[in-house]
């Protein structure tokens, strides 16, 4: 039984090494696949919890602790990344759309602003006070913006 487990463990390690080798050969940086939640430098938050992040994105909380309005950003053409981000918040993309529509039509808030791509998103966030969004970690320039948290890769959790 023990021998069996050792063999399986060894096989897993070899598989991981092979995967890292493939990534290295392909020139892929593991951080490039990770999603970072980024915000403007002056946002008074350092590492919001998942619940706080959900409160911002559902519009339950619309101001930062300093009273400045939270400006939400989303990506227009990156369904894969949106799905990963909203999965992390425990919602599907369609449920989030339903929540935003309810807020908008009740006069209680607006849906996030849409950036065409990640480059535009990080550029806008670096220039817009109170803004928050998500992008690949390697695009987040920590000199120009705050990286509030890095979303764990769901595959790693499994």
């Amino acid at each position: 039984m023990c021998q069996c487990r050792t063999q399986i463990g060894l096989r897993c390690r070899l598989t991981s090494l092979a995967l890292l080798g493939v990534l290295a050969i392909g020139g892929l940086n593991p951080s490039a696949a990770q999603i970072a939640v980024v915000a403007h430098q002056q946002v008074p938050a350092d590492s919001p919890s998942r619940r706080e992040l959900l409160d911002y994105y559902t519009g339950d909380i619309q101001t930062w602790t300093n009273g400045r309005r939270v400006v939400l950003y989303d990506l227009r053409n990156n369904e894969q990344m949106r799905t990963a981000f909203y999965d992390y918040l425990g919602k599907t993309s369609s449920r989030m759309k339903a929540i935003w529509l309810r807020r908008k039509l009740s006069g209680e808030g607006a849906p996030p602003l849409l950036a065409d791509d990640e480059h535009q998103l990080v550029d806008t966030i670096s220039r817009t006070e109170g803004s928050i969004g998500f992008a690949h970690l390697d695009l987040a320039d920590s000199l120009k913006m705050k990286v509030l948290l890095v979303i764990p890769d769901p595959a790693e959790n499994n």
Partner: protein
Amino acid sequence: MDNVHSQTHPRNRTPLACCLIALLAASCFPHFATAQSVRRPIEVFGYFQNGFEQQYDTQSKRRSTTFVMQQLNLFFQKELGNDLTSFVNFETVNSFSSYRRWGAFNLEEAWLRYRTGRSSNIKVGLQIPIFNNLNEISNRTPILPYALRPLVYETSFNEIIPNEEYVPNRAFVQYYGFHQTDLAKIDYAAYLGNGPNINGGYDNDQTENSLRTGVDTSQTVLVGARVGLRSSHVKVGLSGTLEHTNLLKVVDTELAEALDIPTSDLLDLTQVRLGGDFSAEYRSFEIESEFIMVRIKDPSPVVSLRRTFYYVMLGKWLGERTFGFVSMMSTFDKFDTPIVFQLADVDVPTFGVAVHLSDALTAKGQYAYAMVNVEEDLRIHKERLHYFAFALSVVL
């Protein structure tokens, strides 16, 4: 001549009243003064829902088919400052045309909201108060999967089911928000509004307000509240209102004479409305349910009025864009006196599907079987209706 004086006198006081209101507003809302320098554009948006309906009466074998522009709402919203928002909502129902005298056109909301904190607000002006889960959003058709909404929320049935008797449709001051705890959010709302004794222009109440329509003719106001618990997947709440109603608007003075009670016994009766709501989501499943009870606390034990409503809906997301549901809804309306008896009982099992064709377009299809039992002074009338509805909801 007296009338002229009584009408011009208040006008002379108007500038003073305006100054007082402005001073009060400036002291209550400190950001208001700075807000004047912020010039943001007014936002105009809205939605409409067109439908096709077919109804078949199994008793009379009569079939009716119609296209209808069920509802159109236009919103005007303006941010007056960081914490101050104004909002106006115009609504038309049932292919509105004043020229043809079809449908209705309503000013549904005109309010000003001030954020008093990160999770609390005060809203002043004509508004739809928070009562159960659906009241606030019942007329936002793109949010709901239904072509035919739960009965007391179906605005286009207002000519048949008296929605306003079941749910409070208007408030004028509301404080609401939530309190975060470790486990869940505690939602709260408290509001004041007009009671049901609104001067519709058809009565001759000899009161000061009888000159104007759309105003409350009684000396009391509606008081309402909701308390709820909400986590990311479950929402539950209890709502209630207290108001005074005038049964003389429902029955005539002959009833008082026949019962040998003073007509004052049918005036300003205390009416209590109690509601409960529960909604939850689990994976791709959703459940929603509500109940409403309306009772009149009767000072003379000869008049009894009972209204109840409930609905339950079980739904499932069939992929990212399609939502299917089955639902059961029911209203029960009983007015009972020793000489007048009226009972209306409506039960409607229904199922349907909503397909989100895009962010702005939702197509809906629904089937409902309505079982209507009406009993009035020993006459019993039953109707069994098959109802098909297709609708297209468009966000502007």
